[in-house]
Every structure is written in C-alpha cells, then in structure tokens.
C-alpha cells in the first residue's frame, strides 16, 4: 500500500535525518543545511502525494502492532486535517531551514540547531499523523522537549534558559493533563484508537466522565496554544533564535493545541461546557493578546502577543460550536501560519541588518531595504486583514460566524464587539510594526549599517508573501480543495455551505471590517506617540501571569522544602535515615501474620558451617566498630565477610553466585582501597566522644539490633515455609528445550528474562558514566594531596627525591611485578573460558566481564598507572557502547525475523567432517552483557586509579578548604 508507506516515510525521515545530522554534517555547514532542507523538501513532496487519497474525506490508515495485548497499535492516520498540517509543517519547515542558514551567524556549524529542528519537525508530524491518542501524547511531549532545546538554543544567556524552562514546565504539565484526559476518553470509548473515539462522540458527551476529560484535554490544548492564563511562556520564548520563533509560533508548536481542538471537535464540542470554556478562553485570549501587542516596543514582542491574539481567535471560532466556525478556524490556521511566519522572518531580517528590534530606535528602512519592506508590507497587511490578502478572508468569515452566533442577546453583542475591537487593535499593531520599522525618515544611528539581506534570506519571506496574495486573490482556486478536504474530515456530513470569494456584496461583515479598519487607523494616528512612550501595557500591565507562575514555582521549590525541613525532624541525613530504617522496621513488624506450624527442618546443623558464620559475623561486627578510625581494617574485615558469603554460596549449591561474589568482592575492595587515599586522617585520641554521640550510638545500636533480630526471624520463617510451586519449575523444565542451555541461572539471565538483564546493564552503564562524569571535575581536598610523599612533587628537588623513591619501589616490586604480568594472560583466558561455558556450566557474561577487569587491576598494581596508560589504550566507554548496541541488536534481530524483541534462537548446524555444531543467539546477547560489565567496571576503576597521577597544582581557585591546617 503506497499511501501507508509514504506516511511512514514522512514520519521517520525527519528523525533519521536528525540522527544523521551530527554524523554527516559535522563541521560542514553546507551539508548540514542541505540535509535539513532536503529532508523537509522530500517530506513536503511526499505529503503532497497523499492528497488524492484524502481529497474527498477519506481516511488513510497504516497500523503496526505495538502492544496488542493492551489493545494498542502504532497507527498512522491521514485525513484532510492531518494533510493540511503536514503541508504546513513540512513547507514552512523547509522555508525556515533555508532562512536559518542565512540568519544564523556564519561561524556556527549549526549541527545541533538543524538536528533539533528536524527532531522537532518529526515530533510535530508525529502529532498530526497519530491514529492513536496515547501515541499522540507521546509526540506531543516530544515537541515540548524539542521546543525546550530550541528555545534555549543560545543557552549561554540566562533569558534563553529561563524562557526554555518556563515553556517546558507549562507545556509538559499541560501534556500530562492531556495524557490523563485521553486516558479518560479512551476509557469511555473503550479504545485508544482515534477513529473509535471519533465514532463514540455521543457516548462520550453523555458520560459522567465527560467534564473531567474535557477539562484535562483542554488544559493540554490551552497550555500548548498559549491561551490565557497560560500565555506567558510565549512572549518569553522570543529569546529563541528568530527562525525558531518563526517555526514554533506560526505553523507548529502553538498550532498543536489548535489541531487538538479541531481533531476532537466532533467528539467534545456542542455542549454548554465546551462553549463556555473554549469560547470564553478564546475570547479573553484574543482581546488580551491584541491589547498587549499594541503596546510592545520589541518587534518580536508585538508578534508574540499578536500570535496569542490570533490563537485566541482560532480557539474562539472552535468554541462557538457552529460548523462554519470550524471552517473559519481551519482557514485562519493556514492564513495565520503564512503571514506570521513571513512576518517573523522579516523582523529577523531587520534585526539581522540593523542590530536592533526596538520600534523606538527603528524607522525609514524602506529606503535601504526596499524589497524586504515590500514583503513586510504584504505580510503586515495580511495580518491586519486588508482586502486582497488572505487575512481579510478569514476575518470576514470570523465576523460572519460572530454575527451568526445564537447564545442570547448580551453574549452575541459581546462577541461581535470583542471581534471588532480585536480586529481594530490588529490593524493598529500591524501599522505600528510595519510603519515604525520601514516608514518615516531613515535613521543613521543603527548599531550596524543596514543593507538589503541576502537573496536567499528574502526568498522564504517572498514565497510566503506570495502565498498570502494568491490565497487572498484566488481563494477558491488556491485553497478551496484543501480547505474542503480538511473541513470535511472534521465535520463530515455536517459541512456547511460557505463561499470563498473576495466580494460578497455589501454585507454586515464587510461593514464590521470597515469599522475595524478605520478605528485601527485612527487609534494608530492619534495614539502612536503615546504608545511609543509607554513601557507597560495599560489596564492589564499590573497583572502578570508570569509572576504568578514564578511565585508558584518558588513555592514548590523553596518554600515547601523549607516547610518540610521544619516539620521533618531536621535536615540531617542521619536523622532521615533513622526515620526510614525505623519506619521500615515498624511496617515490617506490622506485616507479620502468624504462619502455619512448619515441619521442623530435617537438615542437621553442620558445625563447620556454624563456625564459618561465627567468623563471618565477627568480621561484620568488627567492621562496624572499626569503620571510623581504622578504615583499612574495616575494609579487610568487610572483605572477610564477603568471602564467608561466597563460601556460603558454594556450600548451598550456587556456584554461579560464588564465582561472581568472589570476583566482585575483589574489585570492590580494590575500588575502596583506591578511594581511601582521599579521605581525611582520623585519630581516635584526638576525637573524644561527647555524651550526645554516646547517646546516639546506644540509640542506633538498639535500632540495629531490632532490625537484625527482625530480619533474622523473617528469614528463618521464610526458609521454613518455602513456596511449593514457584515459577522456578517452569525455568527448570524449559531451560534445555526452550533455552538450549543447562545452566538455568544463565539461561534465565540471557534468554527468559533478557529484557530485565538489558535493563540492568543499562543501569550499570549509566552508573559507570556517572562515576566518570563526577570524577571529571574532581577536586580532592588539598590536604589529601599533601599528606603523602607527593607533597614534595612540584619542586625540582622534591621531584628528584620522589623519583628516587619511585625507583626504589620499582626495584622492590620487580619480581612480584614480573610474576603478575605472567598471570595476566592466564586470567584473560580464564575469563574467556568462563564466558564460553556460561550457558551450560557456571559462568557467563557477568562474571567473565568482571574477571577481565581484574587483569586490568593487576596490571595497574604491578606496573603503575603511567606504564599501563602508556602501553594499553583502554577505551571502556566504547566497550559499554558496543555492548549495549550488541545486546539491543540481538534483540532487534528477532524482531526483524518476526518474533518478539529479544527472542533467542538455538539449534545445531550440521557441518561435514566437524559434525554437529551447536549455536545459540543468546551467546551474542551474553557477549553484549560481557562487554558492558567489563567496560563499566573498568571505567570506574580506571578513572579512580588515574586520580593517583594527580599533582598539587597551585591553582588560584583552589578548593574551599585550602586554608585548612595540614595536621
């Protein structure tokens, strides 16, 4: 089915290109630009190919099984509305891509920029293509994330970071509401499929859960579309690069909310609640936006509030509930996207050429930038709703809808009044914007000498201005079919009769247009000086939703934690840990239920085992008492306990665990030894115990004994009440026929529960990278650097002395070092052995990985960090990456073969002469585990061991404790 293929390609191409950008475009701006614009262009062409399939209200669907058990499919759905948005998103994306290449400073490679822009485009296409509401929310949140990164693109500036954060918090919170809303919607409809939900409209509106679902979904739409009172993120987001603003605030991000309203219009609209909420919010937003836009001095500020106003208009059109309103809303969405994108780009061109966007510092640019001025006049006139331009047509339609409203006299009059007022203000701010920048006398005090921008920077503005004209003059011919298809997909059989003509005769809407136009002009001429003198918006300047938002944020992030610290017993970690431990103990105790009397265990107590544990417990208690002053001793005692645990595993038929415990124990001890060096000295005699400390010790001892006794009893009870028929039986029976291995533990890890293992090795990788990152900027305390011989390093004399000491040390270590080097290949071979036999005998990727790391430790110990790092190029991060990729690739291979993710294959190949050769794909997965484990543990050890090469650097910004006495 070619249509399905095309829609799939449209969705996945931008993401693929976003991933490929860093690979292809690194350091080459030309290639990066071509990749971005090429992808957008291909998507645009592909989208246009879909039109014959949907022109008459048909729906194209392409489904992939996603989680069939939950009734979820990954569905791509194209209808007229989707198609319109596809064209807007890809078309304006293409133009913005071209524009950005000329707008963004030359010295930037733009890899990150274009990659993010492509990702954003993909997410936006994902929203409109979603045939499943959960999938829609997923892409919805994805656009929030990408917009966060794009708005904060110039992340060195605080304003950009703040704006990005505000936008993220507002839109993601809205997205979460939306998720809750669609879950309710899906619950009522019985399916998450868009078509199923659209078919269940009557049932949904009659449901008692309708109102919660409506409010939640509207919260999502309003936050995204910057409706009052959530509009404050949009003007702030103007600190984004102008191409980003042109894209996000004309055709994409903010239109996602509009798309949502239109998508669910057939299901949710038509009720009182819908009318009051959507209509009211739209009305308020339209007026607040237009009023605020009039008083902005920053050109982008004018456009930001104007965007809010126009979004309010569209929302209101959708909210009025009439079918003509929907047609007008769709029509205005398209028109607004074209004129607003071109307006943003024109403002960007002014900013680019003059170095300022302040209307009070601009003027007369038509003398130096005539072409840009002409284009801006066209776009501005469309924004103001001047005849022969597209803005005029949708405004006429809007007036007709407002006049046709039938909700009582007062409401209808109010609607008409606000409509005219907003339109008049629209004329005023358009005049201010275009007139203020391009007309009047030419000024000579610009930060830069303005010229006409490069041709290809004007090109996208020109194309869009041309679109405004074409739609405005030949509406029926240019947008007629598209509008019909889109409206048909929302309204179906309810599609009203409407006429896309410039001249309808002397009608009431025309009269309203004239009034608005004259009023706007009068307001501009009479008030322009007073407007220019103002720094804030009159009447509503004192209210600031942004301040409210910041206050809420401050409450959540500062006041509440302080309150909690007051109520909670102290901010000290010890106290909090004590509460956690005691609570765990109490809950554990409360959960105790009397068990049926168990048969006395038949096994006798082996005195040797008891003796072993006597030793183990002694070690543990010794470690507990020594950990403060004798860290080394405590460490050795802990290792002793670990060995006892290891022997216990051998004793109790768990050789796999024993081997793993043994190697992990060794490298944990080495790791802690490496860390010991950086801790402060502590001498018992210098630290007498205070009476409070003594009390704390006794109190904690009581708690510890309580927990110990509790856990011991629990363990004893559990061991005497084993579950007779656990899942283990399945694994034991299926390991050989199903998994092809005799070592059931390993088969569980790499085959039956491979997904869990994949999660675990991911955690391991993340932890290793976190360790790496934390040590990257590690600043040891100055005294630890000075406390050893190394204090002398730095002076020539000291260097020589240290060198001598090092040589003496090397002499001592020669023989052991040589022996150790001999052992290295043996250990490596043993690791290989452990790995290969893992499926049938104790061993496997985990233990083999750590064993390989041991060879590295041994090398570091024998030869020193310098020697090893000079000879051995260890790249543990690559091992981690390769291992994860291999594990995932093994899983995906099964998907390609048509089985669930991570299915393992095993069998025998018959090879002449050699006979049967067994194979098992789980071995490949295990190889991935091996690589991750060895890479992660090696990374952690190597970065820590490498710290020993650190020297005392007399840095001016030495750590805070520099002045500490070196005692």
């Amino acid at each position: 089915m070619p249509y399905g293929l095309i829609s799939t390609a449209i969705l996945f191409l931008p993401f693929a290109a976003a991933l490929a950008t860093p690979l292809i475009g690194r350091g080459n701006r030309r290639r990066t630009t071509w990749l971005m614009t090429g992808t957008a262009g291909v998507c645009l062409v592909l989208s246009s190919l879909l039109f014959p399939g949907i022109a008459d209200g048909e729906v194209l669907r392409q489904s992939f099984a996603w989680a069939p058990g939950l009734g979820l499919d990954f569905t791509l759905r194209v209808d007229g509305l989707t198609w319109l948005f596809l064209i807007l998103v890809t078309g304006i994306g293409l133009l913005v891509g071209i524009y950005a290449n000329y707008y963004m400073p030359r010295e930037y490679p733009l890899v990150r920029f274009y990659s993010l822009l492509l990702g954003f485009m993909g997410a936006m296409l994902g929203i409109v293509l979603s045939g499943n509401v959960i999938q829609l929310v997923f892409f919805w949140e994805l656009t929030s994330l990408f917009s966060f990164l794009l708005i904060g693109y110039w992340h060195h500036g605080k304003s950009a970071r703040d704006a990005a954060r505000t936008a993220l918090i507002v839109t993601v919170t809205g997205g979460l509401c939306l998720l809750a809303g669609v879950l309710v919607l899906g619950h009522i409809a019985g399916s998450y499929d868009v078509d199923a939900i659209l078919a269940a409209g009557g049932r949904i509106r009659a449901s008692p859960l309708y109102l919660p679902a409506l409010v939640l979904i509207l919260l999502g739409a309003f936050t995204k579309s910057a409706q009052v009172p959530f509009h404050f993120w949009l003007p702030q987001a103007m600190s984004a690069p102008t191409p980003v603003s042109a894209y996000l605030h004309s055709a994409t991000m903010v239109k996602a909310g509009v798309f949502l309203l239109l998508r669910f219009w057939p299901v949710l609209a038509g009720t009182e609640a819908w009318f009051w909420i959507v209509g009211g919010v739209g009305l308020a937003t339209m007026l607040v936006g237009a009023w605020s836009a009039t008083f902005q001095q920053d050109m982008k500020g004018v456009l930001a509030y104007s965007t809010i106003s126009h979004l309010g208009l569209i929302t209101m059109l959708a909210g009025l509930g009439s079918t003509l309103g929907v047609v007008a809303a769709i029509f205005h969405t398209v028109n607004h996207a074209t004129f607003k994108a071109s307006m943003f780009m024109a403002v960007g061109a002014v900013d680019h050429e003059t170095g300022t966007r302040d209307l009070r510092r601009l003027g007369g640019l038509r003398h130096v930038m005539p072409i840009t001025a002409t284009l801006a006049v066209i776009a501005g006139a469309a924004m103001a709703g001047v005849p022969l331009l597209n803005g005029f047509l949708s405004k006429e339609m809007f007036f007709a809808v407002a006049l046709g409203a039938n909700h009582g006299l007062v409401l209808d009059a109010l609607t008409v009044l606000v409509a005219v007022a907003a339109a008049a203000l629209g004329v005023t701010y358009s005049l201010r914007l275009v007139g203020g920048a391009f007309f009047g006398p030419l000024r000579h005090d610009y930060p830069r000498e303005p010229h006409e921008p490069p041709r290809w920077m004007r090109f996208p503005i020109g194309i869009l201005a041309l679109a405004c004209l074409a739609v405005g003059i030949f509406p029926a011919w240019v947008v007629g079919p598209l509008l019909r298809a889109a409206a048909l997909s929302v309204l179906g059989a309810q599609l009203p009769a409407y006429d896309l003509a410039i001249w309808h005769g002397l009608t009431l809407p025309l009269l309203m247009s004239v009034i608005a136009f004259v009023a706007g002009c009068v307001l501009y001429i009479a008030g322009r000086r007073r407007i220019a003198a103002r720094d804030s918006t009159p009447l509503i300047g004192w209210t600031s939703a942004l301040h409210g938002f910041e206050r809420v944020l401050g409450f959540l992030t500062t006041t509440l934690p302080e309150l909690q610290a007051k109520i909670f017993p102290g901010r000290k970690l010890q106290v909090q840990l004590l509460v956690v431990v005691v609570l765990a103990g109490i809950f554990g105790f409360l959960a105790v239920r009397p068990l049926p009397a168990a048969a006395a265990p038949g096994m006798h107590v082996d005195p040797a085992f008891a003796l072993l544990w006597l030793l183990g417990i002694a070690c543990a208690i010794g470690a507990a008492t020594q950990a403060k002053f004798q860290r080394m001793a405590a460490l050795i005692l802990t290792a002793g306990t670990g060995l006892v645990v290891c022997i216990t595993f051998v004793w109790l038929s768990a050789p796999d665990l024993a081997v793993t415990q043994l190697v992990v124990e060794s490298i944990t001890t080495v790791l802690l030894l490496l860390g010991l060096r950086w801790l402060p000295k502590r001498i018992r005699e210098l630290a007498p115990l205070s009476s409070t400390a003594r009390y704390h010790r006794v109190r904690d001892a009581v708690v510890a004994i309580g927990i110990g006794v509790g856990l011991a009893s629990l363990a004893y009870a559990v061991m005497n009440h084993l579950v007779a028929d656990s899942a283990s039986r399945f694994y034991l029976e299926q390991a050989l026929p199903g998994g092809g291995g005799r070592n059931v533990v390993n088969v569980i890890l790499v085959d039956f529960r491979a997904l869990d293992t994949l999660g675990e090795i991911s955690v391991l990788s993340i932890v290793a990278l976190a360790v790496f990152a934390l040590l990257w900027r590690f600043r040891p305390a100055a005294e630890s650097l000075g406390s050893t011989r190394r204090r002398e390093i730095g002076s020539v004399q000291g260097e020589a002395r240290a060198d001598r000491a090092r040589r003496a040390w090397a002499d001592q270590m020669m023989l052991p070092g040589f022996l150790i080097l001999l052992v290295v290949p043996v250990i490596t071979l043993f690791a290989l052995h452990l790995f290969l036999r893992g499926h049938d005998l104790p061993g496997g990727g985990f233990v083999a990985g750590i064993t390989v790391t041991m060879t590295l430790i041994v090398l570091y110990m024998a030869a020193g960090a310098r020697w090893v790092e000079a000879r051995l190029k260890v790249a543990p991060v690559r091992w981690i990456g390769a291992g994860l990729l291999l594990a995932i690739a093994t899983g995906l291979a099964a998907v390609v073969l048509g089985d669930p993710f991570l299915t393992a294959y095993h069998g025998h190949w018959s090879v002449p002469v050699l006979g049967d050769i067994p194979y098992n794909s789980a071995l490949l997965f295990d190889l991935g585990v091996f690589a991750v484990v060895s890479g992660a543990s090696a990374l952690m050890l190597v970065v820590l061991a490498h710290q020993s090469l650190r020297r005392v650097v007399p840095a001016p910004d030495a750590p805070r404790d520099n002045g500490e006495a070196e005692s």
Partner: protein
Amino acid sequence: MEAVLAIAIGALAGSGVWLLLRPRTFQVIIGLTLISYAVNLFIFAVGGVRVGADPVLGAATDPSHYADPLPQALVLTAIVISFATTALFLVVLLTSRGFAGNDHVDGEDGTP
C-alpha cells in the same frame, strides 16, 4: 542450617544498619555493603537452603533434584549492581569530601 543462615543475615543487617546511621561517609559505605550482603543472602534463602543439589541440569528430570535457579539469577545481577552502586557512592563521597572539606554525611560539621 536455616537457623545459622538466619542469624547470619540478622547479624549482617544489624551491623550494616548501625553503620548506616553513623555520621562518616566511609562508615555509611561499609554499612551499605554489609546490608547488601544480608539482602542478597535473604533473597537467596527464599529459594530454600539446599546442600548438594545440582546447580546445572543433568540427567534427572525431576525439578526438585536441582537448586532453585530463580533467586540465584536475581542475586547474581544484584551482586553486580551493588558493586556499581558502591562505586557511585564512593565517588559521591570523594566529591562531597572535596567540596565540603570534611567527610561528614551532611558535609557541615566543622571538623575536617
């Protein structure tokens, strides 16, 4: 055997908890190590204490002939993960020591 193992688990957990409540970071790390021993042994014990059971499939078809593999698989990964968390704690300890100038868990006791 069960009684010995139960007492061992209790003793390890008790020592660990006591250390966990101490004010010095190194004590907390050792405490966590001891607690993880106790927990690993506990999970292992849930499968039953078996001396001399076969860990690897052989000729016998009766599942009760073999050691319970499920807790073993759980504990095996737990051992590796606890190594990773120990490493992470150690590095956090070192960094906090570098920033705060002392090794108190709250980083604010004045004495080095």
